[in-house]
């Protein structure tokens, strides 16, 4: 019965982890480029009380044996990189990525991080930056006398000066990974490459599934509040079921202790 307590405790623990993930999803339901996570579970190892195939007589064997499980574990919170809906903002420096790619950003410490959040800015020295002021990689310089900026589907950045002359000043690149779900979220809408994600594969937008850029749009989060709410209800109920098992085991031990 002590096992029962542990087993039910793993169930409660797993469900509280799920509630944490859900609450983070809901808190970011309106965060640009946010990707929802989901908690995945697996059963734990089984204890062989009686091995299957053990002899039950000279000629027969036990077909199934008795194996008792030890509960559940959280095997990962996997991020779902399904695209969010594109929301029009009519801001010239908002770009949404329709496809699998990420924008590469250089952090102040020189490391490269990746983001789906395309709300860009022009920095004090004219370089294209993300909302935190980290430069977009490869670097793009916006000239001083710029009147208008055009970003094409395939990432070419074109500026118009006050005389109306158009110049192409750079190319926004996108990066993809063999396994998006293996990226490590850093906060600030940024992701880092990990051994699980595979090495970053840079490319030009529209190239091989990397996706097109949409100027004047932002990608909304892909959180679906209704799904999150139903998941939350389920997690809470399963949590309660497990607590019922604990109280039953407690009562049983109470009876056992009062037997004499």
């Amino acid at each position: 019965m002590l096992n029962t307590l542990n087993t039910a405790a793993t169930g409660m623990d797993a469900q509280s982890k799920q509630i944490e993930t859900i609450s983070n999803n809901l808190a970011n339901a309106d965060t640009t480029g946010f990707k929802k996570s989901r908690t995945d579970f697996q059963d734990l190892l089984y204890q062989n009380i009686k091995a299957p195939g053990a002899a039950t007589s000279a000629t027969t064997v036990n077909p199934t044996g008795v194996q008792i499980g030890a509960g559940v574990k959280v095997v990962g919170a996997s991020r779902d990189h399904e695209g969010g809906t594109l929301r029009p903002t009519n801001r010239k420096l908002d770009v949404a990525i329709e496809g699998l790619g990420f924008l590469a950003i250089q952090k102040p410490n020189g490391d490269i991080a990746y983001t789906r959040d395309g709300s860009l800015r022009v920095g004090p020295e004219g370089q294209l930056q993300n909302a935190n002021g980290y430069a977009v990689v490869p670097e793009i310089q916006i000239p001083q006398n710029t009147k208008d900026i055009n970003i094409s589907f395939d990432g070419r950045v074109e500026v118009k000066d006050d005389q109306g002359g158009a110049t192409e000043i750079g190319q926004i690149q996108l990066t993809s990974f063999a396994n998006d779900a293996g990226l490590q979220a850093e906060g600030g809408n940024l992701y880092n490459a990990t051994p699980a994600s595979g090495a970053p594969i840079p490319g030009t937008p529209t190239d091989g599934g990397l996706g097109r850029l949409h100027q004047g749009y932002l990608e909304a989060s892909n959180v679906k509040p209704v799904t999150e709410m139903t998941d939350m209800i389920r997690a809470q109920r399963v949590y309660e079921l497990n607590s019922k098992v604990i109280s039953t085991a407690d009562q049983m031990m109470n009876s056992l202790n009062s037997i004499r």
Partner: protein
Amino acid sequence: MESGLVTSLSGALAQSRRIETLANNVANADTAGFKSRDLIFEEMLEDAKAQDDRSDIAPGPLRKSEILARPATENRPVLHGRDYANLKQGAMRQTSNPFDIAIQGNGFLEVLSPNGIRLTRAGNLSLNDKGQLVNRDGFLILGESQANAAQQDPSKRAITLGRGRLQISQEGDVYRSINGASERVGKLSLVQVENPDALKPVGNTMWEAGEDAFLKYPNEAQGRGPASVIPEEVLVRNNPLGPTTVKPEIHQGMLEASNVNPVGQMTKLIEAHRLYEQNLKIMQSVGEMTGRLSEVGKF
């Protein structure tokens, strides 16, 4: 009276084992691809100390129908139960994630674990850094083997998606789709299990298939003798996933939820709890009776 104590002790132990199993089910009430388990005890099925006549019983796995018909040989303690997985199909839950697949019908995915090939119904797939399909532990999901390759290295059967969107057909064909153009990259290997009792749970929502799992009954091969007395319809009825003659279907964007039924688990929990208490009560009575007996003659 001693035997009364032992009998009720074994009953109480059996019920506490059963509660452990139920606790494991409830803990996994939200684990994708999990199948609930239960214990059945021999005392419910057999008359203790019945005649010893098992000449008509074939060696090998027993079906439930067979257990019922089987004459018992000895007075076994109640603890010697057997546990079995309830392989009934779990509910289909829509997730809209292309890396989630649910299997409908009799079919298992093959997973290459470090200890060999294991079977699973958990369809929450992922990719590794090489772009190969893996399960949540990072173990390879295997594709169908080539026609001539019984000895083929299982790691050669990985399905590599690479860059692009994942599409999986109802038959398990895997496609990579880039800008609307699809390219077939492999086919998921779906294993059908004839005898669910021969699946051993190893954790991580995987099963190890015993050698009897794929036996086609009736089958005189492998010297299993009169196993063929079990009629086909009994086997079909006893295989909760459905007959192996029906091909399983894959549904992308869905997950097969755990098939743990909370109502059933709670009623079983109450039942086991009460049986446990009753056994304790009997132990207590026996204890009191023994106590009283020792009082006799003390005047």
